[in-house]
């Protein structure tokens, strides 16, 4: 079970079954799609690393990276960004946390905006600027 499965299961309390064909799509599947976009927003992924960046719920964005150390031992790092009334709290492993500010806050905001724009366009088929379905936007443009 990969990291996405585990964390989504932890939050939603429901398990997921691969290969089970259902009519509806799950949170996990949509998050996985979004994370494919999210992982591209921060430049090249180092060789041997895997990365996820996704919106978990209304208050939480997650960065997760896995790699192997020089002894081929798996290593991972998970950072949560929690949207709180007083700011965006960065939660690092080992109960280390602080509110982010300055350039880091700006860059996270840019990343979230790009994630939002690309997810709406590429996954859900909406124009993020107008809120209209892309097909409808194209039809409107054709009539002008």
């Amino acid at each position, binding site marked *: 079970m990969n990291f996405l499965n585990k964390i989504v299961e932890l939050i939603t309390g429901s398990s997921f079954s691969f290969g089970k064909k259902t*009519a*509806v*799509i*799950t*949170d996990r599947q*949509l998050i996985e*799609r*979004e994370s*494919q976009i999210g992982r*591209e*927003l*921060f*430049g*090249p992924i*180092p060789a041997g690393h895997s990365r996820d960046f996704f*919106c978990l*719920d*209304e208050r939480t*964005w997650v*960065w997760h*990276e896995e790699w192997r150390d*020089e002894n081929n031992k798996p*290593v991972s*790092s998970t*950072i949560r960004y929690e*949207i*709180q*009334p007083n*700011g*965006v709290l960065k939660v*690092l492993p080992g109960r280390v946390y602080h509110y*982010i500010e300055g350039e*880091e806050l*700006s*860059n996270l*905001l*840019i*990343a*979230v*905006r*790009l*994630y*939002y*724009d*690309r*997810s*709406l*366009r*590429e*996954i*859900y*088929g*909406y124009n*993020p*600027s107008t*809120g*209209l*379905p892309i*097909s*409808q936007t194209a039809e409107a443009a054709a009539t002008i």
Partner: protein
Amino acid sequence: MSPNQQSEVSNSFNFPEARPTPQSIEITGLAQPEISPSPVDFEDLSSTNNTSPLDSVSHEAKDRSPDTQTVSLESLTPEQAVSLFSGLTARLLMVREQAKRQPSIKR
């Protein structure tokens, strides 16, 4: 993993490879998505490209319409940042929730 690599991961949002060119970002052009009954078709996903996210921000800044406002990211207050994050996240989750209800989504 070397200490340098660890540092890079821990400071992942500092974009070590590149710095943001524009210091402002459109914040009021986020229209409320109109939910449509049309199914999401994952077979039609447009291909992703490898352009830098900062290039994309730059491109959006050029296309900004005159009736939108901008806020300098450098002068962004925590309250403004929280408002922006909350707005984007809420809209994203609304669209995601709608997609889950589509009965004919291709998996």
